[in-house]
């Protein structure tokens, strides 16, 4: 290990540039944003874009729930409904959740947490943001020029010959372009973590969020090209009739599902791993307690990433995949549950003997544990061959993946936004309204989706515009829940926007975080660190103390900087 010459403690002001200048105001003008290569500004642009898409797809979700409040035609016809759930799924998956945490929060905090000045390839970083924008434009074009009603899974032969809607090619192009945006983000982060760590920042001193982002990067780079080639094949299949997937031309529709899930299952881990990384940070910081079992959590991230590549067939148990592969995939699928369970237990152990503050980010973190536990455990029903046959393609699956994708990834994202909001914007939001909104989201979420487990096990198939009366009561409850949840999100949007203008000025370290981003000012300076920062145990909070005047934490003056103790 490298030895570092430590002669003086890190002053709390370290890294602070001249009073008042930071990454937000050191240059001005629209061009200074659109052409920026600063990872922080790119992260903020991503955040705004992704939240806009989230709003749009969320509205689609609400419309779906409204349509389903009663059987038959409520507010839209079947074709409109089919288009609505397709867009809700495709936008949420490809435009929101996959890029959400890595590209927005990851971009913002990764280099700072690492102690680097920027990501390895800033220009590529900006390029991948514009690829995202291009993908978004294609997605909009898909809506305008023909619409799409295939479901986000784009199964052939429905997508190649079955649908009259012609937006499918645009949507495929959107997926292709967004895939490359995701690849370049992941590539950038992997290289950054490998090559830009400052002296002293060894692998096992990295905050766990970085381990999660690193594991995510592996999947982004190694799985995403396959969805690229899949949609390219889909496009040529639809446009020219190539016959790789279309049985009527001698192709194999099941092969498409192999192609699709070879990416889309690992993509589930692209979505959830960064969320788990955020939760590791949130639990530790807001409990002021060293994370429990650092190495187990770190390795479990990598294990999830690797196992994630060999379980894709569990989406195909009833697709007429061969029984041999079904058995194989079911067996491997269960292995993925272990690292997830390890994480949950380690988070619980972190709470033990902590000093737990129930502020908004922590409430989201606790919600995550609650919801992800349900989402993860119900995965057992679906990984088990005999029960999956009954539950596959029912609302049970819908509930399961919403608990994981939304209760996991999105809740973690919202929690992360609250956690780093003071750092990103330099403002504090209203703690009171934060807790109220979190409560509404939590309650609304459970009302919306828990009932869907029941509905699904009773046999209600998914993607149904109409249904028999006996399922109505569940649909009504679910729809009511979705309105409660929407109210929670609107309140969140309101107080966050309000805080931008009226919020209290944020201290550098409002929560008592120990990783490097909390040692910069809020918001951070443009250069992050004029000098390479000192690195210590990023979960050792004993070096901090409360500053009543600042309403935040700062470095203890009486303790030498802990770098080198390991």
């Amino acid at each position, binding site marked *: 290990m490298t030895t570092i010459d430590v002669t003086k403690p890190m002053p709390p002001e370290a890294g602070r540039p001249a009073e008042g200048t930071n990454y937000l105001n050191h240059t001005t003008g629209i061009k200074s944003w659109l052409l920026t290569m600063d990872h922080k500004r790119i992260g903020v642009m991503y955040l705004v874009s992704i939240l806009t898409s989230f709003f749009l797809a969320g509205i689609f979700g609400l419309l779906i729930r409204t349509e389903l409040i009663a059987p038959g035609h409520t507010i839209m016809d079947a074709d409109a409904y089919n288009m609505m759930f397709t867009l809700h799924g495709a936008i949420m998956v490809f435009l929101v959740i996959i890029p959400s945490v890595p590209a927005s929060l990851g971009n913002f905090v990764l280099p700072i947490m690492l102690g680097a000045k920027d990501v390895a390839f800033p220009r590529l970083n900006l390029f991948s943001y514009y690829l995202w924008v291009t993908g978004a434009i294609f997605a909009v074009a898909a809506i305008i020029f023909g619409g799409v009603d295939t479901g986000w899974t784009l199964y052939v032969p429905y997508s190649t010959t079955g649908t009259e809607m012609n937006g499918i090619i645009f949507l495929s192009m959107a997926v292709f372009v967004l895939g490359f945006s995701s690849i370049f983000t992941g590539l950038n982060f992997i290289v950054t973590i490998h090559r830009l760590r400052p002296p002293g920042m060894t692998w096992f001193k990295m905050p766990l969020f970085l381990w999660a982002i690193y594991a995510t990067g592996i999947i982004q780079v190694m799985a995403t090209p396959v969805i690229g080639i899949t949609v390219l094949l889909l496009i040529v299949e639809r446009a020219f009739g190539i*016959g790789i997937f279309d049985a009527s031309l001698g192709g194999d529709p099941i092969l498409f599902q192999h192609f699709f899930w070879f990416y889309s299952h690992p993509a589930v881990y692209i979505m959830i791993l960064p969320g788990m990384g955020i939760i590791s940070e949130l639990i530790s910081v807001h409990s002021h307690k060293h994370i429990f079992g650092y190495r187990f959590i770190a390795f479990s991230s990598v294990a999830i990433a690797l196992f994630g590549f060999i379980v894709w067939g569990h989406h195909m148990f009833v697709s007429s995949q061969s029984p041999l592969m079904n058995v194989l995939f079911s067996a491997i699928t269960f292995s993925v549950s272990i690292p997830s369970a390890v994480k949950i237990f380690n988070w619980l152990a972190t709470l033990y003997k902590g000093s737990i503050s129930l502020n908004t980010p922590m409430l989201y973190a606790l919600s995550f544990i609650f919801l992800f536990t349900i989402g993860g455990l119900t995965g057992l029903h679906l990984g088990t061959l005999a029960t999956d046959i009954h539950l596959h393609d029912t609302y049970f699956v819908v509930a399961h993946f919403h608990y994981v994708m939304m209760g996991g990834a999105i809740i973690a994202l919202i929690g992360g936004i609250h956690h780093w909001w003071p750092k990103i914007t330099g403002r504090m939001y209203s703690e009171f309204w934060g807790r109220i909104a979190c409560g509404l989201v939590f309650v609304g979420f459970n009302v919306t989706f828990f009932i869907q487990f029941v509905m699904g096990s009773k046999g209600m198939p998914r993607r149904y515009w109409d249904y028999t009366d006996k399922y109505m009561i569940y649909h009504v409850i679910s729809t009511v829940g979705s309105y409660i949840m929407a109210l929670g999100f609107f309140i969140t949007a309101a107080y966050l926007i309000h805080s931008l203008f009226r919020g209290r000025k944020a201290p550098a370290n409002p929560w008592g975080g120990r990783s490097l981003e909390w040692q910069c000012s809020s918001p951070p300076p443009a250069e992050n660190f004029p000098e390479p920062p000192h690195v210590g145990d990023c979960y050792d909070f004993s070096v901090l103390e409360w500053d009543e005047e600042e309403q935040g934490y700062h470095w203890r003056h009486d303790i030498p900087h802990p770098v080198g103790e390991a």
Partner: protein
Amino acid sequence: MTVSPAHAHEHPDFLRHHFNTPKQQFEAGKLGMWLFLATEVLLFGGLFVGYSVWRGNHPEMFKAGSIFLNTNLGAVNTAVLILSSITMAAAVTMAQRNKRGALMLFLSLTLAGAVTFLVIKYFEYTHKFHLGIYPGLKFYEKPAGDSHTLSGSLVNDAGGVDLVLVKGTGPLGQDVTVADTPEAEPTTVAPAAIGPAGLAQDALEPGDRPADDGHAEHLTHPLQDPHRPANVHMFFNIYYLMTGLHGVHVAAGIGVLTWLLIGAAKGRFSSAYFTPVDLGGLYWHVVDLIWIFLFPLFYLI
């Protein structure tokens, strides 16, 4: 911690602000490029999966179809790419040794190889188009206005009928055009023992098959061979897909090489900073690498 803020003296122009040393920058670039190459491998990997499954389901189609690829041209193209790979690798060595003239020479040779490859590929493609072998079933569609005609014919340059187009509307509502020939009997679509394409397992007996002498020109083209398995033109779909995507990569390589050549002419590269040449070289070698696999898979077996 001792900090020497004045290491700017060894902060050359090419070193970007967030890197500390040229070596760090070089190795970051290199790792980034290898990761990118991994994505390229996986991108083509999908097509190789498609190839394997398609071949597994329709072995007879590969037998009947690959005869019509010109092995000699394929072999020449392989040699061209290998030669250009040698010159590319040499170009990197020259850049590392600060030999600007040699660097430019080798880059130009590589570029020439890339262009030659595409020119040969162009002739291969146009020859097939001339025979009426196009990628994709729907490509045969005749111009709008007679979408109800159930058949038509495509007259080749020599005035002969190359293939008859069977055209109509499929049960799913899409327009469908099927290439057929006057000679093909409906019996050639006897059900296969295995495989969904309606193909006799081995419709081509060795005796029926024209000898593979690498010159396809004098053969009846695959759509007219009365002994062909039905739908043999479907073989060419995967052929066009894989060689087409590879061709796109060669074309992109031409862009990269041109950009490197301009950079070399401006003297941007030296033994201290040759990262772009090195990374461009890595890309070019992967393009070569993929062709090394495509050549035997299509032309030889």
